[in-house]
Every structure is written in C-alpha cells, then in structure tokens.
C-alpha cells in the first residue's frame, strides 16, 4: 500500500485560504488503511478547518465525500456534477489520486491535503513500515524475501557492510540490519547458500531517469 501523512494544518489552511467553498474528498483505499485520508480523517479535517475558519472570521463552506479510490476513473466520475459547485477540491488521496482527479477535472484546483510517503505494510495497528521502493526489478526471493534496496540503508546486494551492532543498522540504530534479517531467515530455512552468488548492481533505469513509468495490458483495455 501507499502510505501518506496529513500535511500540517497550517499548510492546509494556507492552501485553502483563497477559497470559500471546498469539496473535501477522501479515499477509501491505501490512505484509509494508514489513517491519513479515509472517511474518518476526511471528517476530522473538515471539522478542524471549519472551526478554524469560524475563529478567524473567514467564510468557509465544506462538503465531505469519500471515494472508494481516487486513482480510478470509475470512482472519480462520482464527483461529476458535484465538483462544479465548489471553488476547489481538497483531496486526501496520495499523489497519484490527486493527479488522477485533476486530470478528470482540470478546471478546478485540486489541493493535496497529504504528503505521500512510501510503499509499505501495516506492521500492526498504527505502525506502517516501508518495505518496497518500486525499483521495477524485484529479486526479494534471493534475499529471504527481505528487500535489500528498501531495508538496507546502504542498499547493499552482496552481504552486510560489517557496521551493524547487535543486529541494528549502523546508519540508523533504530532499524534492524537488513542483512542480519536476511542471513537469519536464509539460515533458518536452509538457504544460506543463495548468498554465495554474486548479484550485479540493480538496473536503476527501470525506476529512474526515464520519466513516469507505465504498464500496458492490451487484454485489459477496452
């Protein structure tokens, strides 16, 4: 899932200050899971913004709505007919959702209420950890299903740096050494010999340097 965090209220208030009528749109997908942009958070943010406006004698009318996903046209289309009644949309989606909505409604400013952060997992309620960098060349199976690009601070492919202490990373002692985790897991499952192979550097051109990526599946298209 994509994770995100709400922007500081000060920043959001500054963004919406030119507008008096705002449609606040949440997303029921990834950002709901990380408690940043779901229906609850949309209600919370709207309430806070309305109260702030009242206290500063600013006119503000808001309406809240939460789409299943803000990155899929069929859901975004639910805003058709509604968006024109507002001066701006405050979107609690990830960056992908904000831009997808803007593509469908280019005539109205779509303001991002969140800062998109990383691809990760819900480790436990209230704790989300990054575990994927979207490199486009997944080889986690070679490393006991622990991604050295994401979870090793130095992104090493061929063994630890030797700087870890008590299983914790030298760069950030608050995180476990990815290579310690890799070795432990491979050892436990009798696959330690996988590390005898020397792996070439990642092909970063799959991730960077070529502009926005795309995937096309003709069998899925209309």
């Amino acid at each position, binding site marked *: 899932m994509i994770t995100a965090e709400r922007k500081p209220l*000060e920043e959001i208030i500054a963004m919406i200050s030119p507008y008096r009528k705002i449609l606040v749109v949440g997303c029921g997908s990834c950002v709901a899971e990380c408690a940043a942009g779901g229906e609850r958070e949309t209600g*919370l943010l709207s309430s806070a913004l*309305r109260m702030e406006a009242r206290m500063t004698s600013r006119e503000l009318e808001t309406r809240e709505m939460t789409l299943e996903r803000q990155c899929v046209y069929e859901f975004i289309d639910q805003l058709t007919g509604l968006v024109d009644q507002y001066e701006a949309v405050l979107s609690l989606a990830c960056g992908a959702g904000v831009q997808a909505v803007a593509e469908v409604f280019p005539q109205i400013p779509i303001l991002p209420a969140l800062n998109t952060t990383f691809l990760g997992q819900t480790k436990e309620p209230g704790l989300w950890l990054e575990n994927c960098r979207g490199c486009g060349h997944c080889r986690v199976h070679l490393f006991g299903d622990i991604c050295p690009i994401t979870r090793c601070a130095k992104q090493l492919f061929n063994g630890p740096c030797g700087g870890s202490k008590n299983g914790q990373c030298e760069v950030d002692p608050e995180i476990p050494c990815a290579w310690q985790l890799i070795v432990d897991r491979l050892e436990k499952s009798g696959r330690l010999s996988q590390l005898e192979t020397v792996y070439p550097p990642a092909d970063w051109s799959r991730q960077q340097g070529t502009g926005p990526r795309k995937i096309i599946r003709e069998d899925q298209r209309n």
Partner: protein
Amino acid sequence: MGTHPSDMNIDIFFCQQIDPAQDLNRRVIEKELGPRIKFFPLPCSGRIEPLHFLRALESGADLVFLVTCPEKACRYQQGNTRARKRIHYAQDLIQEIGIDPERLVLVMARPPLPQAIDRLTRELLTRIPVKGHSLLRRL
C-alpha cells in the same frame, strides 16, 4: 471572570460499564441541569474517535469530558488506553487550530466500580479546568 458551569455547554462521553444504571442516573442530572449537559454513553471508552470530540466542539460544546474505567479495569483490556491516546490526538489537533486543548478532559473513574454517573458528573462540575466559553461559541 469565571464562567459558571451552568452557563457552559458540557458534553460528557463515558463508558457505560462505569454505571450499569446509567440510563436512569443520567436522566436525573439531565433534568436538574438542563440541555447544557449532554451525555454520550459508549459501550467502551475505546470506541471514542477524535472526530467525536471535534464534532462536539464544533456543535458548541465549551468543554468535553471523556470518562473511562479505572486503570487495568477495562473489560475489553485496551479500551481506556486507546481512549487516552485518542483524546491526546484530538488535543494536539485542536491546539493546531488555536483551541485550548484543556477543553477536552480525560477523567479516569476511581475504583471501585460501579459509580453513579450523576454523582460523578456533579464531581466533574466542581473541577472545570478552563474559564469562559469556547472561542467558537463566542463568535
């Protein structure tokens, strides 16, 4: 320039487990104090959401109490712990928009339970931590 508690709009969210006879007991005090006091029974204080607090303030509450079961006495184990974290979250949020976080008050009922909610409420009203109406109400 204090504001008498009877002038303040006070919302009280409370765990029903504190007072099994809460339905009867809160009507006693509702009759006594009138519409300025509103009670919101919860099946567990852990059911509270920050949105409840904000909606209460937005609707004109000057003060919002959250009354939880005593430490280690939550029948659902984590409910009162969760409630404490959520009120703190809401306090931080309202502070960001300039509302005094002390307008949200966490109260942990003292053992033993049960405790009559009307008696508890009278006690709460003797220790109002803020003066004056909420900024929102004054506007």
